[in-house]
């Protein structure tokens, strides 16, 4: 990924792949409203940006650190329900509620991850799966606080007396949040921390004998991914004006993993492509709605068979292969 930057050492700052990715995402976000014929498209794109934010975070965990979270929607749920419950039950305004939800999400990730990363293997996947199911159960059963299976409404955000509504407004809020999330993720990738994470994904043994504390770094990546997810969840709830336990469901978690995998692990742009496909496809082909789960499963299989590295890295690889 960084070969291009490395071959031109003196002018690294000019057009590194990091900058290319960031400019690409920014341009896409900025240009789309000009070509969209209706608000409907803005709404779908906003959903892609919020999901994309969560997927970019999850990609730091899966693509960089090589760890899988099967309960990632739970962190989305924490962020989403924080902005629902805070104003309704506790009288805390939406934005402080969102920040509290994000902080809580980080804390929970730390508590869940701390003992897990000492162990090797698939413990994180199992532990996050369990945690995700537990949280979904609590959200469904504690109806007095959460509205139960039907969910609950979320108060509109007001900033200095201005009600934040409208498809275009939310398009820009989610788009800018995504761009910031992408920029931070790209920063991390290109930093000493990112380098160490990529290294332990390739060989944990080799990384550890040069002093990389694998457990601590994986925990860091997990907490960061949880913060991305909670931010995404809070934005989603504020934008939609309601939350349901589906936000935190196991299926939603699987969708996120699928987005990372089909887009291409370790590629920020790939994560966005994965999010775009999985959010936009069911919207575009509404006939599929009933079969969404089946189509999701089929997609995973097809991509795992034909583009094992995911769409973006896979296509780059295919392209290189054809030129040989």
């Amino acid at each position, binding site marked *: 990924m*960084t070969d291009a930057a490395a071959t031109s050492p003196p002018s690294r700052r000019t057009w590194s792949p990091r900058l290319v990715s960031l400019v690409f995402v920014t341009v896409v976000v900025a240009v789309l409203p000009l070509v969209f014929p209706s608000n409907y498209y803005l709404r779908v794109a906003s959903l892609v940006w919020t999901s994309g934010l969560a997927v970019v975070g999850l990609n730091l965990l899966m693509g960089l650190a090589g760890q899988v979270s099967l309960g990632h929607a739970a962190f989305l749920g924490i962020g989403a329900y924080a902005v629902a419950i805070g104003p309704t039950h506790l009288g805390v305004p939406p934005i402080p509620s969102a920040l509290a939800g994000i902080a809580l999400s980080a804390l929970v990730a730390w508590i869940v991850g701390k003992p897990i990363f000492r162990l090797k293997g698939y413990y994180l996947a199992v532990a996050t799966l369990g945690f995700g199911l537990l949280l979904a159960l609590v959200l469904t059963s504690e109806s007095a606080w959460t509205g139960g299976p039907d969910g609950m409404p979320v108060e509109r955000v007001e900033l200095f007396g201005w009600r934040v509504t409208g498809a275009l407004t939310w398009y820009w809020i989610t788009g800018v949040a995504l761009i910031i999330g992408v920029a931070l993720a790209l920063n991390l990738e290109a930093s000493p921390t990112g*380098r160490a994470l990529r290294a332990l994904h390739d060989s944990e043994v080799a990384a550890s004998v040069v002093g990389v504390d694998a457990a601590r770094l994986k925990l860091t990546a997990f907490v960061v991914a949880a913060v991305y997810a909670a931010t995404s969840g809070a934005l989603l709830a504020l934008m939609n004006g309601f939350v349901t336990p589906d936000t935190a469901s196991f299926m939603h978690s699987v969708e996120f993993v699928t987005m990372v995998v089909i887009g291409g692990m370790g590629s920020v742009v790939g994560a966005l492509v994965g999010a775009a496909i999985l959010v936009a496809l069911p919207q575009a082909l509404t006939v599929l709605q009933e079969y969404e789960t089946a189509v999701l499963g089929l997609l995973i299989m097809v991509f795992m068979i034909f583009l094992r590295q995911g769409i973006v890295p896979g296509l780059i690889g295919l392209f290189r292969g054809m030129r040989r």
Partner: protein
Amino acid sequence: MTATRTSNAAALEVDGVGISFGGIRALDGVSFRAHPGEVFSIIGPNGAGKTTLFNIVSGLYRPTSGRVRIAGQEATGLAPARLARRGLSRTFQNLQIFFRMTAVENVMVGRHMAEKTGFFADLLALPSVGRQNRATRAAALALLDRVGLADLADQPAGALPYGALKRLEIARALATEPKVLLLDEPAAGCNAVETEEIDQLIHAVAEGGVAVVLVEHDMKLVMKISSRILVLVQGKPLVVGTPAEVRADPRVIEAYLGSHGETEAARADR
């Protein structure tokens, strides 16, 4: 025979180390000391337990008996990353390369402990991160130059030939500025010229005050470069001594010319 040296603090001290895998005693009662500036070699037929010994010393396996000390301090069973902080690094017989990174990035990871930026600086790409990346890269390039891989710095590691990867591992281990360096068959798969380069490199590293512990099947290299040699056979120490002593020892000749002589000779020829 090494009585004069045992009074100094050894860089690495292995004392009666043993390990069992499912009832099979893979190592038993192995002891040695490696001092700063020396090349201490461990030889023995295939399956003797040389790599297993390295795995114990570097914290990947916990010994069922015995102790390991680094610079006189207890280090038995510490995690590899902790041992790295104590100044121990190693290479691997069955390459452990960061295959999706470039050659120079592989060595840059070796500078991890020397890197000073914190997580939030990294996240925000503060100017200190750019400076750190450039400093790390410069140090890594210098090390690649030292092992003769400067031209391949920006190649993906996955595309490098075997001999180059062996040297890449040495550069990455050196990047940690170790006091004890374990090299597991660094010359395997290398041609005569490359072996000669590795010989000089190991010599220079030891000159710099590092205790080098070498496992190698190339007897010419071992006899030439080592100050002392430990011979392991089926997990048990057979002899410790200078190259001349080891070469002349009838037990060593028997161990090698016995069942394993043929394969050893074949490997040395390659």
